[in-house]
């Protein structure tokens, strides 16, 4: 698989189909990988692929530094590829401006990440070139897909509130969650707006609540649950729990799953006469 990946990257660079390949490279220890940006065909051997390739490289599509390198080819797993679908729908990238190298994946991380448990995109849904044997994507029921919420949903309203108060108290406002998120692509985040200052920037409980709730809300109907925010959080706040819950509510109420179909109408920007009104409480 690695060889096929390197060969494809070399071919793309040589033919000048793309200017740069975003991929995974070996890290300082075997259990780690790091993002690499290959611009010369002779460097393709830096590319690798293994079960430690957890990062969602699509987040670099929003970074000016990476964009300056020119037209990219990007190595994506099935979950990461969903991000590209959203980015296309939200006018952040044009399909023709990106070359997608999809890799088939049967689970990532050691032990495997939560998101891999009910993975229905072992083979990416969108790609230009597929590396690895094509895997028939599995189907999971609604309940199976959101099984990780089972414990949380058993909590009473009060318990939920206390739980989040405790979690958010840990927040140090480092904004790593937003930096890593491929869909947090605003040049100026609402937290940076200071006239008026909607969100208190200090690591005070009030500002912490505003920030974390706003971040989750801004991803409602958009988040593809790559879990990167949760992975990078130095305070170990289970951020994806919020994201996942919102994804569940979005699917339940609007029959919409983010990142699955580029032609679906955006749940949060579309009004339909038969929209569920159960969300108003």
């Amino acid at each position: 698989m690695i060889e096929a990946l390197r060969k494809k990257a070399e071919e793309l660079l040589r033919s000048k189909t793309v200017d740069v390949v975003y991929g995974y490279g070996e890290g300082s220890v075997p259990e780690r990988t790091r993002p690499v940006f290959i611009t010369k065909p002779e460097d393709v051997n830096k590319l690798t692929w293994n079960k430690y390739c957890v990062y969602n490289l699509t987040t670099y599509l929003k970074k000016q530094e990476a964009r300056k390198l020119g037209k990219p080819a990007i190595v994506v797993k099935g979950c990461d590829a969903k991000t590209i679908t959203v980015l296309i729908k939200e006018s952040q990238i044009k399909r023709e401006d990106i070359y997608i190298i999809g890799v088939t994946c049967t689970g990532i991380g050691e032990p495997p990440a939560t998101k891999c448990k009910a993975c229905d995109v072992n083979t990416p849904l969108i790609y230009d070139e597929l590396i690895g044997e094509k895997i028939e994507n599995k189907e999971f029921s609604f309940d199976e897909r959101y099984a990780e919420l089972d414990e949380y949903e058993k909590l009473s309203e009060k318990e939920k509130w206390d739980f989040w108060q405790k979690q958010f108290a840990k927040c140090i406002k480092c904004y790593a969650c937003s930096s890593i998120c491929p869909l947090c692509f605003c040049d100026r985040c609402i937290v940076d707006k200071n006239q008026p200052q909607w969100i208190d920037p200090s690591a005070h409980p009030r500002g912490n609540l505003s920030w974390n709730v706003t971040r989750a809300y801004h991803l409602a109907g958009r988040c593809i649950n790559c879990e990167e925010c949760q992975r990078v959080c130095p305070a170990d706040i289970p951020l994806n729990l919020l994201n996942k819950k919102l994804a569940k509510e979005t699917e339940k109420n609007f029959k919409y799953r983010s990142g699955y179909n580029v032609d679906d109408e955006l749940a949060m920007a579309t009004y339909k006469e038969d929209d569920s009104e159960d969300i108003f409480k």
Partner: protein
Amino acid sequence: MGNKKIGVFVCHCGTNISATVDVEKVAEETKKNNPGVSYTTTYKYMCSDPGQKLLRDKIKEEGLDGVVVAACSPKMHEHTFRNAAIKTGLNPYHVEISNIREQCSWVHPEIPVGTEKSTDLVRMMTEKVRKDKSLNAIKVPVTKRALVIGGGIAGIQAALDIADGGHEVIMVEREASIGGHMAQLSETFPTLDCSQCIMTPKMVEAAQNDNITMHTWSEIESVDGYIGNFTVKIRKKARSVDLDLCTGCSSCWQVCPCSKIKSEFDMGLGNRTAIYIPFPQAIPSKPVIDRENCILFKDARKKNIKPNDSKVCRKCIDACPIAPVKAIDYNQEDEIIEVKVGAIIVATGYKELEDGLYGEYGGGKYEDVITGLQFERLASASGPTEGVIKRPSDGKEPEIVVFIQCVGSRDPAKGCSYCSKTCCMYTAKHTMLYKHKVHHGHAFVFYIDIRCAGKGYEEFSQRAIEEEGATYLRGRVSRVYKKGEKLVVLGADTLTGSVVEIEADMVVLASAMKAQDDAMEIAQKLSIQYDKDKFLSEIHPKLKPVESSSAGIFLAGTCQGPKDIPETVAQAGAAASKVLALLSSDELEREPVVARVDRQLPPVFSTCIGCFYCQKVCPYSAIESEDIKARDGSVIKTVARVNEGLCQGCGLCAATCRSKSIELDGFNDEQIYAEINAVEFN
């Protein structure tokens, strides 16, 4: 801006407010606790002339540069108080209304609660006023031309009125001729003058008016733009006849072999040819080819060839005397034209309830059960029987006719909970027309109520009963069934409490007036609202009865709801007067409450990231995209931009924008934030 001198005027509204709000205390507390509020007072009726004078005088005397009027809903009097401020030279957008009536005194019966809440509401508004900025009305140029959609009596009347006012009108009618339903009617109530006799002169007048351009056999393709500046695409459907060449000599339709097509104009009671004019007085009096039914077009479709290459039948083109180029062109295609107009009148009319909907009355099943409009055609001198009342099945003169009122109307089970308003009158008229033509005949009418409110209407229906001898039975009909040649009508007479069985020769159903099948489509094309019955909605049922929910688009006639001819004509005139008022100025002033996408000086050009969620949620198509370019012309980024002319200031975009890059003038983030912060949490 923080050092504004703010004046607060608390209105008693008679006792509407002062009964449950201690207005003096509100004024006192406001003065005491709000630094910057330099003047407070109360007044019995702020909206009265002396009340407004008080406001004007105090603005000048006290040198106020911000005003809060604590009174009724801003919907009622914001305009009044802002206008008063203008007269003193103060920018009207420094005047805010604190609604202490609808949102306080009317809902809180206890004085302490009402007073405390009012004080809070006033404080919130004083904080907003502190952040208010001067805004200037937006000026938009006006295209001095109107579009009228629909060529029935409403459309024609509106077009004539606008044309007489000196402005160009473009009229679009989807049928081959203008005239609409009124042209189908025989006589009209309450005067029994012939409909055609009063309608056709208007049609001719419209056709000959230099200011009116008519597009028949045409439909609205799309509508873009905004008040004063609409761009409308019109689909001119292929007529297969060149209107410039054709003289309407009738040679073609006289030779057409497809003569057994049900005439839509005669409501299926008569036949027409495939190349036809809908009725003798049609305007334009030039034919159209019905491509569905013409054998030449059928053949061409089957063989998948161009119509002109088919040789099955060319009788009409051969008969056409126009030379050297024939007026008939089989290969004609739809044409789309674009027009620019400043105002639009929608007059798309109604349709009659489908007769098949009432199976129990035999509608659509028995030939001799006909609808109101079909009866009009039977009674019309230009109709299929030339005005002689003959029943459709065997052409016999019907001696007993039963008229059933409220067929569909007032029947939620059939989807029309409303009253169709015209049926009581036209049924009375039908009984008269029938009795005038069949002297020995007998007319029975089943009714729920007789609703004849209108000038001369009650007298008219009484005349039907007393002078013309129609038998009115108060009750519903349960069933109509066939017995030999007769139709047995089984009904109830609730006044005598008896069951009535009438053996009739013909049954006439006073079918409901319904919205056109495609009323929703036209509403969506125009971005205007419609009601539960798909009739187009006026914006205010009492005070703005001809204005639609989109500025610059007006409603006339039955597209807005059932109504009779006098009412339709009056409404068309009203709509036309609104259009004339709009077209009388070169520029329009609009409320400057519009959204604005953040723009800054280089190097940060805009915080907008161009996700275009705003564009997707905007109900008025007011969001456009714009490229921000570097000096060398390369695109730095594509961002959203608000078209001020289209924006109605609803604020959906501002609420949707994640990076808060859109703000609504007059309701910007700082203003709203100041209001929220002014709420004291206890």
